[in-house]
């Protein structure tokens, strides 16, 4: 390896920005570095690192086929928060529904991240906008939601009797549930 090659290699390695051949030449104090750059690029061909030129600027980069090695993924199981679970339940029982409606039913505002989490989990999707004032964005569940919770369809969501039998509805009136079931029927 020549001294000029070494100098150019070190210069490009240490530079925070891609450099033009001219800038490199100024840095290493040499004219006509183009040929040396081409030779250096050839030397690096097939390495895990490549010397490439983009728009007349040279820089080192890791070989594109190794990108997967540099981005390690780690699965992190995480339990859905109480707020997110409630939000998901409301969407499931009332879909398609807007953020405003979810908040009205929960009686608590939902933070921006909550819907994001549900969409990230793949259980909730946006479902157009409701015609009317403000044209609110609507949310609905996804097929993945049904799969994850072992439901054949939304009709398999337990109704009032099931929830009551499970003691999940103690202070709740039946009429409310009938109301809700009607609205489900409308959509079904």
């Amino acid at each position, binding site marked *: 390896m020549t001294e000029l090659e070494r100098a150019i290699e070190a210069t490009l*390695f240490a530079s925070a920005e891609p450099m033009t051949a001219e800038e490199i030449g100024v840095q290493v104090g040499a004219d006509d570095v183009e040929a040396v750059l081409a030779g250096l690029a050839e030397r690096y061909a097939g390495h895990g690192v490549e010397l490439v030129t983009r728009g007349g600027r040279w820089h080192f980069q890791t070989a594109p086929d190794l990108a997967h090695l540099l981005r*390690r993924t*780690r*699965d*992190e199981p995480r*339990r859905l928060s109480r707020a997110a*679970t*409630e939000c998901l339940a409301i969407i499931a029982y009332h879909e398609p529904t807007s953020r405003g409606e979810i908040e009205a039913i929960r009686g608590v505002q939902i933070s921006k991240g909550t819907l994001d989490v549900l969409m990230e989990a793949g259980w909730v999707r946006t479902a157009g906008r409701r015609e009317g004032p403000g044209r609110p964005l609507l949310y609905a569940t996804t097929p993945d939601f049904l799969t994850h919770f072992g439901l054949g369809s939304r009709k398999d969501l337990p109704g009032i009797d099931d929830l009551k039998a*499970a003691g999940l509805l103690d*202070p709740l009136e039946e009429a409310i549930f009938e109301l809700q079931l009607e609205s489900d029927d409308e959509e079904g």
Partner: protein
Amino acid sequence: MDDFEPVPDHSTLTLTLDGWEGPLDLLLTLARAQKVDLAQISILALTDQYIAYIDNASSLKLEVAADYLVMAAWLAYLKSCLLLPKDPTIDPSPEELVLRLQLRLQRLDAMREAGARLLGRDRIGRDVFARGSPEGLALVRNVQWKAAAFDLYAAYGRVRARTQPAMHVVAHRSVMTLEHAIARVSALLGAAIDWTTLESFLPATIDPAYRKSALASSFVATLELARQGRLEIEQDKAFDELYVRRVA
């Protein structure tokens, strides 16, 4: 303080002492002026130089000078021990003390030199450089959200229970509405010109609950019709039969 070889200024000792990093620093500088191996240093000569330096001080800032004066006193003591005939009862012996002082000066000197050599090494960011713009190794956290079906249903029940006002609806009970009773009583009044008991207006039913509802609604209906001046009501005493009659 950045200078490795502070230049003593004899005219202003206060400032000069500020420039030393303690008496040992001053001693070491004086010792190095002897230009011999620190292990061979003449402690007698060093003591004389040190004391002369301190004596030359025209003004002393006491809090700064205290350590220097202690050292001067100790050196004067050491010098006297070295010059006087040997007293074997003194422990440690003056020779031992000299050795320790030499060792101390050597230690400080060694560390001072080591520091300078460290700073002179090929340092990252000055002499050698790391990659200018490393792509970085990304650790992508693939969050897998977990929730059981039961959590979902429990959440829904919780939400409804929390937010719906308790609303009590009487279920599976047939009632006669006020409107219905008014219509019935008005219609029946057409046939009843004479005093008639209210009960006789009630529909025939075997459902006692409906009968009670019909009675209550019909009573309110008669009151309403009486207010409109369309019928009269009569009752002999409390809880007795109610009689109604159309106003002619």
